[in-house]
Structure formats: structure tokens, C-alpha cells
């Protein structure tokens, strides 16, 4: 098992997939970088380096830098997906979904349905999410539940390098459009990459969550960067005598209800920590579905921990006040679930 960063795991997966399948193309803003600048031979490889080396290896016919026009290039991606290519389109920040919402929620999401399955749409929209780096209100949102609420879109939120690689591989192979959300705070996170005996990345199915750790007293549900906060909190809570079970659903849609119900059946308590919306977000969705489907197992009311219902603030102290953290998880767990 090779230790690799989250960003490099994604880069490696893009390289492997493109080498194996000529129909995969990549397009987005600055993904090769320096387009049109004379004597520019240093590849930017995307603002986070995830697309590094692709243009040099596969050529600018398959790796396209686009103008800053999300509607046009997301729409181009879905049109290409409908006509024989497997495009991986990068939208630099999920906040920019606001610019191309028609192409996402009307065009990409509905095409398979409107064609009654005569058209497959193997389209991946890679994007970033998450606060914590001072990027402010329009480069920091976590819109995973917003897009997951639209039928026809699949939404992936990996939390480890192995999951990032395995889920991206599956997303590229998917006949449905997939919104692949990479938390900016995770790019430097290192961990093992899961490869088979031939050195191929092991794909991870969409809709299959994972136990981050087992426990008996409280089910902690977290995705993306919140998984690490949940782990830190669980360490502290263990010292206080509360053994937490941590579930990372890994994909928002499809959502692995089985693992969630199985865990709640064991612990009887649920705390969902999420960086998304305080109202009608992912935390509310999990609390609602568990309340409906596993009510009999619950020993107390389920709880969600999210940022306040405000846009993401800029200043360091403000942003820290905004974000859920392991300290807040500990405080919340003790307040609601101390026996």
C-alpha cells in the first residue's frame, strides 16, 4: 500500500482512467493552465494541481482549458457525454454552480429520464467544497445536499485518498451524471491507496458507506473534512466514557441507509455533523430518514450539528466560529447524550 495525498490520488486516477479509455476528456478553467501564453511551458494543472500532467501526456485535444463560462463548458460536457465521450468537467468551486445551474439541474440531471434511458450520461463534474481557508462566502460553500435533492444527479464526497481514487474511478464509469465534491481542506491529507495485485486502483461502489470506527454508545455521521473532526472528537469522548461509532456515507446520493440504520440499531443515538446547510441540508436529511425508518431503535432525539444558517464568513475567528469542529462535536455529544 502506497501512502499518497488526496490530491495526488485524484491525479493518479485521472491519469490511469484516461490512459485506459480514449473517450475520457477533461475540460475546465486552468486545468492545464497558461493557455495562450507564449513560452509558457510550466503546467499549472488546475488551481489545486489535480489535473497536473494530463495535458502534457494526453494532449490538448483531450485536455481542454476553457474560458470562464461555466454554463457553456458544463453544457458542452453533457452534450459530449450524450454523444459518446466520457467527460470529466472541472467547476473550480461548487459556489460557481450558481452560474451554470440550468445546465446542472435541468439539462444534465434530466437527460437520461427525458430520453427514457435511450441516452446515457457518463458525465463527472469535479468540484471543490468547504470552508476553513479564508476563501470567503463565494468560494467556500458545501452544496452537496442542494445538488443531491435534484433527481438524476449523483453526489460523492470522499474523505480519504483511497476513497477519492476509488470513488472517482467508479464515477467516471457511471452512466449517470456525478457531482464529485473534493473538500479543499483535504488535498494535503495523506493515506494509503487501495490497489489490486496488478496495481490498479480498487473502485468503490457509489451508495456504500464505511465504518470509520466501531462503537456502542453514539453514531456519529460525517462526510468530507468533517470525518477527521469526528475522529478527533471520538478520541476525546472515549476518554469521557462515550464510545462513538463513526459512519462516513461517502456518497450523498445514493445514500447508504443500510449502514446508517445498522449503526443506529446498535447505538440508539445519532449525531450528524455536516458542513452544509443548517436547514434542509444533509444533516436534516439523515435525521429525517433515520427518524422515519429507524425510530424504534432511537433512545433519544437525533441531533444535527451544522454551521449557523449564514453564508461563510471571511475572518479567521469568524470562520472558526462558523465551522463545526471536534470541540463542538464533543460539547454537543456530552450535552445531548450523557447518560
Amino acid at each position, binding site marked *: 500500500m502506497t501512502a499518497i495525498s488526496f490530491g495526488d490520488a485524484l491525479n493518479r486516477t485521472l491519469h490511469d482512467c484516461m490512459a485506459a479509455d480514449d473517450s475520457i476528456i477533461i475540460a475546465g478553467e486552468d486545468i492545464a493552465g497558461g493557455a495562450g501564453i507564449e513560452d509558457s511551458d510550466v503546467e499549472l494543472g488546475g488551481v489545486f494541481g489535480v489535473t497536473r500532467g494530463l495535458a502534457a501526456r494526453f494532449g490538448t485535444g483531450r485536455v481542454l482549458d476553457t474560458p470562464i463560462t461555466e454554463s457553456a463548458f458544463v453544457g458542452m460536457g453533457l*452534450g459530449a457525454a450524450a454523444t*459518446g465521450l466520457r467527460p470529466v468537467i472541472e467547476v473550480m468551486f461548487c459556489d460557481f454552480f450558481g452560474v451554470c445551474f440550468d445546465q446542472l439541474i435541468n439539462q444534465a440531471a434530466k437527460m437520461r*429520464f427525458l430520453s427514457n434511458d435511450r441516452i446515457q450520461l457518463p458525465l463527472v463534474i469535479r468540484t471543490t467544497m468547504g470552508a476553513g481557508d479564508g476563501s470567503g462566502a463565494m468560494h467556500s460553500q458545501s452544496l452537496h445536499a442542494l445538488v443531491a435533492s435534484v433527481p438524476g444527479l449523483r453526489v460523492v464526497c470522499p474523505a480519504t485518498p483511497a476513497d477519492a481514487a476509488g470513488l472517482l474511478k467508479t464515477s467516471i464509469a457511471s452512466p449517470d451524471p456525478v457531482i464529485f465534491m473534493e473538500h479543499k481542506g483535504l488535498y494535503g491529507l495523506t493515506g494509503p491507496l487501495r490497489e489490486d495485485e496488478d496495481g490498479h486502483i480498487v473502485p468503490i461502489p457509489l451508495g456504500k458507506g464505511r465504518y470509520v470506527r466501531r462503537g456502542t454508545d453514539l453514531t456519529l455521521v460525517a462526510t468530507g473534512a468533517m470525518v477527521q473532526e469526528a475522529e478527533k472528537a471520538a478520541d476525546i469522548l472515549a476518554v469521557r466514557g462515550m464510545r462513538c461509532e463513526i459512519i462516513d456515507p461517502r456518497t450523498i446520493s445514493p445514500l447508504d441507509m443500510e449502514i446508517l440504520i445498522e449503526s443506529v440499531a446498535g447505538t440508539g443515538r445519532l449525531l450528524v455533523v455536516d458542513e452544509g446547510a443548517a436547514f434542509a441540508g444533509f444533516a436534516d436529511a439523515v435525521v429525517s430518514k433515520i427518524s422515519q*425508518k429507524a425510530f424504534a431503535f432511537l433512545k433519544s432525539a437525533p441531533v444535527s450539528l451544522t454551521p449557523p444558517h449564514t453564508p461563510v464568513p471571511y475572518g479567521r475567528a469568524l470562520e472558526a466560529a462558523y465551522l463545526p469542529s471536534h470541540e463542538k462535536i464533543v460539547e454537543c455529544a456530552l450535552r445531548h447524550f450523557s447518560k
Partner: protein
Amino acid sequence: MDIEILGKYLFKAAFIRSFEQRLAQFSQKGLVPGLLHLCLGAEVFEVILCSKLDSSCDQVTGSHRSHGLALAMETDPVSVAAEILGLEAGLSAGIGGTQHLLAPESGFLSSNGIVGGQVPMAAGAALSAKVRGTGGIAVTVFGDGAFNQGAISETMNLAAVLSLPVLFIVENNGLGQSTAAGYATAGSVIQRVRSLGIAAERVDSNDIEAVDTVTDTMTAWVRNNGSPAVIEALVPRLGGHYHGENEAYLGDQKVPDPLHTLETKALNSGLAEDQIQDILSRARQDADSAVEQAAKLYPAGESLMAKWSAKLHWNSGVGLLQAGGTDT
């Protein structure tokens, strides 16, 4: 012009006219689920345009007003009619309906319920043709109303800078729903497009020779150069925004009907009066029979919705461990 070709154009355009008029009658009887946005007046232009395309490698995308384009691309008329009537034998089993006709197998990728929404995907079809080396082009048809949408300016720019073989067709019928193009559009279509360095031509759809030449030249130009081009086609809208709307705002405008112009042109080019009448009556009979055949078919029911509900379900039907509560 060759009278055989004129005869073909006339048959197809008349077929589309009759097809839509028959559907309009069904609509008046309450048998069409949605509102019908008829292409009355655009048939001739669309038939000539599509005659220049190769459905094995080209793809067309259109607006909410696309019955005629789907038919001009030779999509099976019974399937089109059944789709518009919301029936199981429709292109998409009645899931899409009048504004969402998808027939990629005959080179009609998609029509669209969002004004301008169909335009970016044409850049994708063009990219696909380019990367896969099929020799195909994409053609996207939209109105003067859509021309002001950002997605269209973005896509024209993208197609130009990435050299994508897309032919943009601005069907200028002078009206975006009930708003005049002159009120809604600053400058002119051709000026705006040429400022992007894109080849552009304007053609009046009542000038049959010019339509034939311009569509031929521009499709060939896009195919041979692998770069975008624009045609602004002046087409009349001979009815309301949709069939049955209050058309009082249209006033008392008299616009020549390109279908009559084509008829006259065919006559003047040497097609006999009785041949023309024969073409028109065959077109009417064929169209009526297609729509009536479709109308005898059945709507899809709950099982189709159950299939799609399972396919798109937020948990994809992962087996649930039930512990009371409802399954939603």
C-alpha cells in the same frame, strides 16, 4: 432549382404543417397534456436546413418549438405524435412530451424547455464529433428571444475559441413570447455575432433559393473548417406563442407564409398544378394518419414511474432494515 428537390421540400414542409394542425385539433379537444408551441411558418426553413445534414453523424438541438425539427430529421412521426400526446409508444414513452423530444438516433439530440438551454450541449455534440473524428457537426436552433441569453453568448465564444463545428441558427420570428425582438435585443444579431469573429449570414425564409444556398454553404463551411458559423433566419411566427393563447397582442400583421411561397416557387419552376395538389394532399393524408395512429395508442402507467423511481432513488433501492416508520 431542381423541381424534384422542390417537390421534396414541399412535401416535408406541408407534412409538418398538417401534422401540427392535426395535433392542434387534438389539443382543442383536451387530448394533449401540455401546451403546443407550433412551428407554423418555420417549416420550410427547417426542412431545407435539415436536408443538408447527415443524421448518421450530425446532431441537432432545438427549442421548445421543435416538432418540425424532429420531423425534418426524419424521426418517426408516429413516435413524435405519441410523445406529444403523452403515450407509451412515444419517443420517450410520454416522459418528455412536446417540449422534450429526444431522438439522437435520427440526429435530433434534444429539444428543450429552457429558452437557450439546448445551445451549450450542441458544443458538446460538436466536441464529440471532433474528438471521435466522425466528420459530424452540431446544429443548434433557437429564437431571437433566446439570443439574449448568456448561455448562448458563452457557447458562441467557446465554440469559436475551441474551434468546434457548431452551426448556430437564430430563427428570428420577431417575437420572444409576446415581446418584440426590437424591444428586447440591442444592436443586431449579425453585428453581435460578427464581433466574435464568427462567420454569419442572414436569410429571409421566404427567399427559397437563398435559404437553399445559405444552409448549404454554411453547413459545408462548418463541416470543412471545423469552426462555428451563424445563420440568422427570418421566419414568420404564424400563430401565438402556443396554440390557444390569447393572440390579441399580435395585432393585424400580414406576413407571407413561406409554405405558400414554396408552392408558388415550385409552380414557377415547372411543377404542374395537379402535381403540387397531389403532393399537398399526400402530405396531409400521411400526417393525419400518423397523428391518428398515435392517438389510438395507450399511455404508460404506474409501472414506468415505479421503474424510474427505483432507478433514480436517493438510496438506489439499497435494502432497508425496517424498524417501523414508512418507506418514502
